[in-house]
């Protein structure tokens, strides 16, 4: 029995659940936070989404069937929570989702939670011009160095389609940065 299976059993056992869950939060909080932050951009929003993600994980762990890795399952929850959050905000602001994505990075230069230089700011703006799925693939591959097999498990997309998606994403990003760099 692997360590992960034992850990999942502890998470699904009423007597050990709380203690195991604390361990899970400690292990994954930073990775999930950065994944969420790259989608929602603002720290406060990322904090809200991260907490909601862990609450969903805590409530749903009993139904986790181990058809994928625990890590992929949590990433998927975090991704869905982040996208739902963004869509909700766009609806509240009565703007199109692609416009809202670009709004997120428009104030980054004055955000004290962002310390990037001009080219790094351009990179973030470029990513936000991509369709949502390409943004996810780009972030997971470029920043998180996830393997295509892992991204495939998280997003439920074939590896071939992911490779093509990533290729289009990097090309568009490069083009944006080149065209907008002074």
């Amino acid at each position, binding site marked *: 029995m692997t360590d992960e299976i034992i850990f999942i059993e502890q998470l699904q056992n009423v007597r050990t659940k709380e203690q195991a869950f604390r361990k899970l*939060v400690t292990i994954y909080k930073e990775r999930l936070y950065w994944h969420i932050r790259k989608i929602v951009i603002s*720290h406060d929003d990322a904090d809200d989404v991260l907490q*909601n993600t862990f*609450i969903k994980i805590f409530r749903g762990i009993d139904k986790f069937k181990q058809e994928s890795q625990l890590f992929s399952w949590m990433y998927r929850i975090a991704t869905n929570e982040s996208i739902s959050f963004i869509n909700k905000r766009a609806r509240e602001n009565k703007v199109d989702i692609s416009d809202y994505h670009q709004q997120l990075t428009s104030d980054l230069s004055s955000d004290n939670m*962002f310390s990037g230089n001009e080219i790094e700011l351009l990179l973030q703006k470029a990513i936000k011009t991509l369709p949502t799925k390409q943004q996810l693939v780009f972030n997971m591959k*470029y920043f998180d160095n996830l393997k295509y097999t892992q991204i495939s498990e998280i997003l439920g997309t074939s590896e071939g389609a992911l490779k093509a998606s990533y*290729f289009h994403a990097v090309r568009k990003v490069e083009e944006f940065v080149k065209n907008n760099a002074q």
Partner: protein
Amino acid sequence: MNRDTKNNEDYLNNISKYKKQFSVPENYFNSVEDSVFSKVIEKQLPGELTYNVPDDYFENFEDTLFSNSEFAKKEVKVISLKSRVINSIPTAAAACMLLFVGLNYFSTNEKTSFETITSEELELWFHDSNLEDNSRDLLEFVDADFTKNTIIEDDTSINDDDILKYLNTLNNNTLLTEIES
């Protein structure tokens, strides 16, 4: 020497030609170009993520999370409307049955009177109550339910036609038994 090399090559060819030892993922070669060019472009982009978090954010995260009111609710068992309706069917059916039985047997509009009690019910009650063995009870029973006025009123209300009708309802055997007694 050359002959040996040739033999070795043939031997190796036989192994590799007829036995495919390695495989590649499906459609791997279709996506090689994408992967290669992605890598080339990646190298030209800034690789660092430059977002910051407040001091001690991750150190205090567990405390923040576990004090979240939503987390404090923990597992709220959500019962779907469908399953709730399905689960309620036996209870609702039992309640309907009880209501039906109650309405039919316990809340009749007709007032129970002496006239509505059949002779069989009276006999049964008489036996069950052991009134045969207790003459005092019997006397009380008669005193309570057959007052003098009731008997007189009943007597005056009976006419000859009623008696004739009553006699016609009795079968002959019963009539003979009553005459003999």
